């Protein structure tokens, strides 16, 4: 009951005119920044950070929350409409979202995306509100072996989305691990695969890889196809799903909300992992699994629900332990620190009103995101009416500027172009691009946690199996892997059995010609 009264006070603070205006502005900024490939909502949060210094702490946090929540959804707009994820976590949304656009269902796709995002985000916000303290106790038990196991779970999830191109997906993932290993190692500071280049010593930024592999390769593909888009997009508005459609997606939204919320609470796992795992799980349980990748509503609803479901619970380790699990929450930590507020268990006692204002801000931001998303999506969809040469020219400019802006170094522009060419080559060879991106993002994390675990536990690999939590997560990863591979294994076994039976069957009289 105490939680409800605190939450009511928080809601009252959020609906104060100045605070509400800031949250609304933040949500719009987040959606726009997320929708522009190469710009990203994290950059928007970084740029907004100095402005928060002059705000009250609660206002600063709800402003940044608005950008965060809006940004996670915003990336889906470009994913769905032009097959270019605005942010990494919206990558899975393109797998079924863009095919829906090509079928003339862009309005429906955007409506599903914004609705599911709001549902996932609200679920996560409620979980954060009512479950912060129990989560904190659970998160305290996580050490490097558990974090490593969680990243392995994320890497294994790629198998679930391989869609009949298992070997190609695995190769793409391994290539991503290699790209992620370029630069200085996290423990000893030794350069690997840098070939004497100082720029490569700081590694290859995943934003550069993402922009190149998706956006530049899309531009090159369009050029190769003679500059024609396959289908004309109909409708420049968003069509909200009907109650019947929402009801049909209830199972998807429920599963993905839980998956996203759990993954979000693990520092370092991130919205990408949540979205990919949710897509993989949905593909396994759906009756339409064979159609995934062709524009299936569940294939869009799952990652959309999950990636926003990570936002609320990602704040739990930040508020309860002072551990930011992502770049976005790290910026929030910076804002809290500037205001002289130290996150941790004591925060709930010393700044109860602030904490519940943040919780209320999340809940309200997920509603505001719907309106912001509808307006921005309409404006973005209008872009589809622009002639393709102009559109792809702008995309090229924005992508190269985005790549340049990562480190203000023109070499990143050429690295981006190089990955664009690689992405184009992958598409020509029918090798999926998404696993490589996942490998680039998760590979360095996995390495860091692995090396830390080895240093802390005497180089014993058994530590991952002897610690119950770590072993449980790895067992979950193994089970997920087997569950994902089972349809292919079953098909292969059936083929072999049929082949063996055919060889053993005695030739019929017709076969013998008698």
């Amino acid at each position: 009951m105490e939680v409800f009264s605190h939450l009511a006070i928080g809601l009252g603070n959020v609906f104060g005119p100045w605070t509400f205006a800031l949250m609304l502005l933040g949500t719009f900024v987040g959606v726009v920044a997320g929708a522009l490939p190469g710009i990203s909502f994290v950059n928007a949060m970084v740029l907004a950070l100095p402005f928060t210094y002059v705000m009250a702490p609660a206002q600063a946090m709800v402003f940044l929350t608005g950008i965060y929540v809006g940004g996670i959804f915003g990336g889906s707009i470009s994913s769905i409409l032009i097959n270019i994820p605005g942010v990494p976590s919206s990558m899975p949304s393109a797998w079924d979202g863009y095919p829906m656009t090509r079928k003339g269902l862009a309005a429906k796709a955007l409506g599903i995306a914004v609705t599911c995002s709001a549902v996932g985000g609200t679920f996560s916000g409620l979980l954060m509100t009512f479950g912060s303290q129990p989560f904190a106790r659970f998160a305290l038990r996580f050490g490097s072996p558990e974090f490593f196991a969680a990243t392995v779970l994320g890497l294994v999830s790629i198998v679930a989305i391989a869609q009949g191109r298992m070997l190609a997906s695995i190769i793409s993932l391994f290539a991503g691990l290699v790209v992620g290993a370029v630069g200085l190692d996290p423990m000893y500071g030794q350069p690997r695969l840098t070939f004497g280049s100082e720029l490569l010593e700081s590694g290859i930024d995943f934003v550069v890889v993402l922009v190149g592999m998706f956006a530049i390769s899309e531009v090159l593909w369009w050029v190769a196809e003679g500059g024609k888009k396959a289908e004309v997009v109909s409708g420049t508005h968003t069509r909200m799903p009907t109650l019947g459609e929402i009801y049909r997606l209830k199972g998807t939204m429920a599963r993905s909300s839980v998956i996203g919320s759990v993954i979000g609470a693990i520092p370092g796992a991130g919205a990408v992992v949540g979205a990919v795992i949710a897509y993989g799980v949905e593909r396994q349980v759906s009756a339409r699994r064979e159609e995934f990748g062709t524009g299936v509503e569940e294939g869009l609803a799952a990652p959309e629900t999950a990636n926003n479901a990570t936002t609320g619970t990602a704040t739990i380790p930040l508020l309860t332990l002072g551990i930011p699990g992502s770049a976005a929450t790290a910026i929030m930590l910076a804002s809290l620190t500037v205001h002289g507020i130290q996150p941790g268990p004591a925060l709930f006692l010393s700044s109860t009103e602030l904490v519940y204002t943040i919780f209320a801000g999340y809940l309200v931001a997920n509603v505001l995101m719907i309106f912001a998303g509808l307006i921005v999506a309409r404006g973005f969809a209008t872009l589809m009416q622009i002639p393709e040469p102009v559109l792809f020219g702008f995309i090229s400019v924005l992508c190269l500027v985005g790549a340049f802006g990562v480190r203000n170094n023109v070499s990143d522009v050429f690295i981006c172009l190089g990955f664009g060419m690689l992405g184009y080559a992958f598409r020509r060879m029918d090798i999926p691009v998404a696993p490589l991106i996942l490998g680039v993002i998760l590979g360095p994390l996995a390495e860091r946690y692995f090396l830390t675990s080895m240093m802390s536990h005497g180089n014993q690999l058994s530590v991952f199996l002897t610690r119950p939590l770590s072993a449980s997560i790895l067992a979950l990863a193994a089970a997920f892997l087997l569950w994902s591979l089972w349809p292919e294994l079953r098909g292969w076994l059936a083929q072999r059995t049929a082949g063996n039976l055919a060889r053993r069957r005695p030739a019929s009289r017709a076969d013998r010609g008698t």
Partner: protein
Amino acid sequence: MAGIGRHWRRIVSSGLCGPVAGTLVSLLLLYHVSTAQAVGVPPGAYGPLSWPLFALILLAAGMGLLCAFRARELLRRGSAPFDADRQPAPGTARVVLAIGLIALYGAAFVYAGFLFATLAFLAAWLAFTHYRRPLALTLVSVLGTLAPLYLLTKVVHMPLPRGVGVLELATIQLYQWLRLF
């Protein structure tokens, strides 16, 4: 010679070249990493080269497996009628030109500055993609440069390159005229 050409076209059409190239690159990188010296690592401990070695071994193995599958398919098709008329991938020449254009834009970023480089790139891109109505091309190039310029400098506060020499001076003059600073 005709026989060699026919076999080469068969190899290309089987999609074997990519995996073979990938395998060779992986093996070269593997050799490079395995011959590097890990610094400051206690004996028997996992060090800075462990993870990239692991990843490269997996990549080389995966690429090798893909080569094997494609080679098996190629040998199985050996008796099948050969499709001699496999054309190069559609638009390859255009793709190469597009890559060259984008690369030139990237190079011009530093020397010509964002403003002039983007103006030139958009004009060249539109001409290359057959969007050649003079008024539309000019308007799109100019507005398409100014809009991101304002967005990036005034809103996002991203420092953009101004070029070198005369172009830098011209860029600064234009920035002042445009009230960018």
